[in-house]
């Protein structure tokens, strides 16, 4: 374990991570998780159920975001509790040059939200944003950033 409990303070930042997503990443997650809902890979279907475009699995966003915590803690087995609400969909437009390319990027930051001295656990509060690409042709570099996860909290057990 690389993190010493006694060195931590509430409000301390644990870092930032950017996670690029392409349509291929959604297909890979669909296969790995078994969640084959077509809203995550079929544009026509997504629009038919009133979504702006294909969207990422909420569980892909949740699963990718926690790696900031895992890498900081030094042991993925130390994450004893992890929760979130899904507030806004992460739109992943089609982008294909000579191959499938990333068309959006998640930005994840984490800070220490609470420390439990008796249990020696630390709660990391994550902020996860993605550009609002719900309008066709929106530019991920300039689009407004939306909070896609709310109350995203991971509890880490330290030694």
């Amino acid at each position, binding site marked *: 374990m690389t993190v010493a409990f006694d060195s931590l303070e509430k409000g301390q930042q644990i870092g930032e991570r950017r*996670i690029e997503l392409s349509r291929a*990443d959604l297909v*890979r*997650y669909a*296969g*790995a*998780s*078994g*969640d084959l*809902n077509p809203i995550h890979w079929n544009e026509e279907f997504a629009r038919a*159920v009133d979504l702006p475009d294909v969207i990422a699995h*909420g*569980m*892909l966003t*949740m*699963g*990718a975001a*926690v*790696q900031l*915590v*895992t*890498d900081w803690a*030094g*042991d*993925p*087995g130390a*994450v*004893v*509790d*992890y*929760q*979130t*609400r*899904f507030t806004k969909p992460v739109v992943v437009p089609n982008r294909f040059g000579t191959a499938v390319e990333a068309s959006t990027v998640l930005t994840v930051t984490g800070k220490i939200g609470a420390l439990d001295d008796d249990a020696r656990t630390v709660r990391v509060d994550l902020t996860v944003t993605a550009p609002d690409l719900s309008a066709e042709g929106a530019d991920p570099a300039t689009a407004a950033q939306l909070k896609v996860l709310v109350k995203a909290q*991971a509890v880490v057990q330290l030694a």
Partner: protein
Amino acid sequence: MPVNPDLVGRTYPPAETYTVGREAIREFARAVQAGHPAHHDVEAARSLGHADLVAPPTFAIVVAQRADAALIADPEAGIDFSRVVHADQRFTHHRPIVAGDELVAELHVDQVRAMGSGAMVTSRAEIRTVEGEPVATTVSSLLVRGEDQ
């Protein structure tokens, strides 16, 4: 058909056993872009004190969603899967999931709340080893959108 409010308290027993394989952990870790060596390299996982490769913190969803399938497929539940939106999710790990685990999940419907013409369904999967050791508890809320939502 609207969601059946009488679902609350209903339990769906474990279906088939889920055997956690090393390649399944590696594939899931790649899919969530998790590069920590404990997901990929057995020696790295053992050096942290784990018996084998460690699953990423959200891997339990694979087991939980298989249990959810029983609820969604239940004709009495009235859940139209094409109108389901994942509203929130929680994982509580009693111990890490590692390769070689043989897991079963029992699903409990804890809450059904009317939301306009739709409903919010909260279910909990209790994931244990086949020997009965508690491994993880997952809680999911699914918003089933009504016809005009």
